[in-house]
């Protein structure tokens, strides 16, 4: 899966999460969007739901990876900071899973 496809999945998850928000609170769909942590749009409940959504979309493309696990939580720099870091992290996990 190309990084561009991963990004599409993340964008779709942002749009899904936006269903829970009022018009003036919607998360911007962009590569720079901060997701979780400093200035992040999501709280921990929102993150759980968001990551499940991304995982499910990946499963639809036959990619079985777990995003919300010990490994992700214990990284010194959280992979959930923004769309770009999450894209890179998913890309890494996919490549590892194919080795």
């Amino acid at each position, binding site marked *: 899966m190309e990084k561009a496809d991963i990004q599409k999945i993340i964008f779709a998850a942002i749009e899904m999460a936006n269903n*829970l928000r009022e018009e003036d609170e919607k998360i911007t769909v962009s590569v720079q969007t901060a997701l979780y942590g400093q200035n992040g749009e999501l709280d921990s*409940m929102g993150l759980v739901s968001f990551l*499940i*959504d991304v995982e*499910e979309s990946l499963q639809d493309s036959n990619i079985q990876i777990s995003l*919300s696990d010990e490994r992700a939580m214990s990284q010194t720099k959280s992979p959930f900071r923004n769309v770009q870091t999450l894209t890179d992290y998913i890309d890494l996990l996919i490549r590892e899973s194919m080795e």
Partner: protein
Amino acid sequence: MIDFFLEKMKESPSHEAVVSSAFSANYGELIKLMDNFTCWLEEKGIPEGAVVSFDGDYSPSSIALFLSLTQNKNIVVPLSQDSYRHFVEFREIASTEFDISLLGDEPRLIATGREAKHDLYKKLRETKSPGLVLFSSGSTGKSKAIVQDLNKLMGKFSKQRKPLRMLIFLQLDHIGGVNSLLYSLANKGTVIVADGRSPEKVCKAIDNYKGEVLPTSPTFLNLLILSKAYESYDLTSLKLVTYGTEPMQESTLKRLGTLFPETQIQQTYGLSEVGILRSKSKSSDSLWMKVGGEEFTTKIVNGTLWIKSDSAMLGYLNAPSPFDDEGFLDTGDMVEQEGEWLRILGRKSEIINVGGLKVFPAEVESVLLEMDNVEDVVVFGEDNPITGKMVAAKFKLNTSETPREIKARMFAYCKDKLQPYKIPSKIILTEDDTYNERFKRMRRLDKDSH
């Protein structure tokens, strides 16, 4: 105690006792059937105190056999088709000495060669009391076998109450089914048996036999609303609808009130272990109720309801005694209290702890059921490394939608109705029934089945 019931039945032999599309019998005929069984039991040499199972759903025969076994001071193990997969297991746990089958034209008897020596059975034999063995639904794994003293259970019905035409919803292997039958027999009532438990068949039976009382479950009532089966039948005879066994969804209750404005809707509260408590709903559209009655005492410990009752079970055959030193039993139900009124929130074991916040499945289900195209939904917890547990929902839809479509709709619908941590993060679609044979939502089993 059985004599009291027989006296009552003899008072009006021509009164209709039980009716369905397949059979009907008046009290006189029921007594005659019972006499036949009494001779048969004697002929077959079934002694007083023996543990006897029988299979067969509600019919004049099964009712008569139940009464004959009670009169013979047997320990009765009623088995219904609801649990046919467990017949062998249940007979073993109960250590039945005789198994009777009513499924053919003639009753068949098997002597098992087992000897039932459990201490609880000994207690019943010492006091020369008939007994009853019921099985819990086994939501936590193995079914627990509950031993009741039938004399105590029957004793509750000695006070005269209104004769009613009651639709039987639960079988004789369930405390609710036994309770309905005993009420009916003690008060010259009529038991109505539907051809099945679909909303259509239940409505048809109410219409055909002028049913006045429908004791049922919230899940069934929800299906009734969705099926619109009530539109095709005359249900004006229905005076009272009772629901128990699981928390009611506020949304279902509201719609029922609109659909059946003339019918009283009342919550009942009962457990196989302590029997059915007399209860009173604050109003037809209220989830607040008073429980109790002369023979019950209740207390609330850490938000959980405990009950003490004269007609409580003697104990479990296959589990330790659940009673505390004062004889109170932990119901496992979390409740909210306001003066003398109680509101059942849900099973303690079914609470979903999302990052330290409590979620009761019934509250979430109530909101999700209001959505379009939802036939039924069960809400339960799933492990999540971030919040410990997260909320998941398994939907059964009327017409097909993709998981993402329903999820997007659900988010939009719930955003101003539920706090964020209560909104399901995960959605599963199913074609299967989301409830068991007794129309009770299956939350725990779901977790293992996907």
